């Protein structure tokens, strides 16, 4: 049986309109003659959302006892029995109560897809495992229900439901997201403009990296044909990213390596780690221990650790960037500069000047910087 097609509507926060858009597209499919049913819908008492669902067939929920309370959940067997051509299943990150077929709703969706049923579903960016930590740092709010990032990778289409922070706050104030008594608390906490702006950036990056990752999975054919055809076949490689992370033999570099590896995974590209070692200094003691640890981490991750002896960090990096075809440079946050060093141009700026145009430089903050700054 052919697996169903999977479309995920991704949002930066509750209230951007993921469910609304999912229902809207579901209705369009109905009008086009397809058999569509709602497997699970969470309208959150939003009138506009409920209005979009009107007229669409709903597979009844099942009641499940959980901690002396009766809760309503998606009825997976009923959805499979009903076997519509397209099932609309809201909130894929939801955790099911114990005793159901699966622990998580995204696992239920795997069964639905396997039955040849197309699925539209929704999720917010803070539910993605690898971003949960970053979003918690940005917003101070940690969500408990997470899903592996690979869930997005299994989707045939990921649609970002984008809304400016100002527009979302306006929706919130108008009572279109939460009931009146909860609005002020939401505005004071999660829905602060700076939070929403950061979440929007994270969402846009996530989808951009997904698109890039999917594009690079299309294998270029063997170079045959005319010169022009050969060049054309190399285009996906030529525009692909290559990451270089600048490390030092100290534990704090591990976080930078983890961040760099995550980006490399999403882009489906290789990762190089570079330590520019001051000349003449032997590798011994703690430094040797940390270099061994970095080498080991690089080996586990499939990254390449380069050690270049050079007295000019920027010149050494620029040379490696050219040699390795790096397009993306990741550096750790610099320590506070003292004395005359404060007059010198910061490292990221010097790196941008020294490396070829088109090489992006990303600064990864030290863990704890946020708390120290606050």
């Amino acid at each position: 049986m052919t697996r169903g097609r999977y479309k995920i509507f991704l949002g930066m926060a509750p209230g951007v309109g993921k469910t609304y858009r999912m229902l809207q597209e579901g209705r369009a499919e109905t009008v086009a003659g397809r058999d569509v049913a709602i497997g699970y819908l969470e309208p959150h008492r939003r009138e506009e959302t409920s209005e979009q669902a009107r007229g669409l067939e709903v597979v009844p929920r099942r009641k499940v006892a959980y901690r002396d309370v009766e809760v309503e959940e998606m009825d997976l067997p009923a959805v499979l029995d009903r076997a519509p051509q397209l099932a609309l299943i809201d909130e894929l990150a939801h955790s099911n109560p114990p005793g159901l077929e699966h622990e998580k709703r995204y696992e239920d969706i795997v069964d639905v897809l396997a039955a040849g049923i197309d699925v539209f579903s929704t999720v917010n960016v803070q539910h993605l495992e690898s971003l949960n930590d970053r979003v918690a740092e940005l917003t101070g709010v940690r969500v408990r229900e997470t899903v592996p990032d690979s869930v997005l990778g299994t989707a045939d289409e990921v649609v970002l439901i984008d809304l400016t922070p100002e527009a979302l706050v306006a929706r919130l104030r108008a009572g279109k997201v939460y009931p009146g008594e909860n609005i002020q608390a939401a505005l004071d906490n999660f829905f602060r403009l700076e939070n929403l702006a950061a979440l929007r950036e994270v969402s846009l990056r996530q989808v951009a990296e997904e698109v890039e990752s999917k594009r690079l999975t299309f294998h270029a054919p063997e170079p045959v044909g005319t010169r022009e055809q050969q060049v054309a076949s190399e285009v996906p490689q030529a525009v692909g990213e290559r990451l270089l992370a600048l490390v030092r033999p100290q534990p704090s570099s591990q976080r930078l390596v983890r961040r760099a590896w995550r980006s490399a995974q999403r882009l489906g590209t290789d990762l190089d780690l570079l330590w520019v070692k001051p000349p003449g200094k032997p590798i011994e003691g703690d430094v040797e221990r940390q270099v061994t640890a970095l080498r080991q981490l690089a080996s586990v991750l499939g990254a390449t650790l380069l050690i270049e002896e050079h007295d000019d960090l920027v010149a050494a990096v620029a040379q490696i960037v050219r040699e390795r075809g790096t397009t993306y440079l990741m550096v750790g946050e610099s320590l506070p500069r003292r004395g005359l060093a404060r007059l010198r141009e910061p490292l990221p700026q010097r790196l941008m000047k020294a490396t070829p145009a088109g090489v992006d430089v990303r600064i990864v903050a030290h863990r704890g910087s946020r708390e120290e700054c606050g």
Partner: protein
Amino acid sequence: MPARAGEAQGRAVDAALRLARAEDATLMPAYLAAVPKQLPLECAIPNEAAKAMPMLEAIEQRATGQGVPVDARVERGRSYRHALSRLLEHETFDRVVVSATATGAAGLSGDDLVWLLEKAPAEVLILRPDPKDQRVVMA
């Protein structure tokens, strides 16, 4: 081994953090990865890494919040015991904090713990496992 980033790593992490904070020590969370025999022992293990990295990230975040420095490791072996044995060979530490298990699903088995008590050149603290614990060793 199931690994869920963002979830609590359980009592082993809490205990290790309490000890590290009290003794002004560095916490070394070590993720033990079993490499199948058909693969070279030193090969890249992206699937295991995809579980290990969020876990280590979460532990580091908790440790940083409590002012405990962290120096993490990922150690490969043919089995969890083999990975632990390799870790003991080339790292130095004063104390090992580990979760026990009766099922083998998380923590170390009884046999592994007996072996660890005999081999570890350090104090060993064995904790009753939390259902959510991952196979992780703190030193």
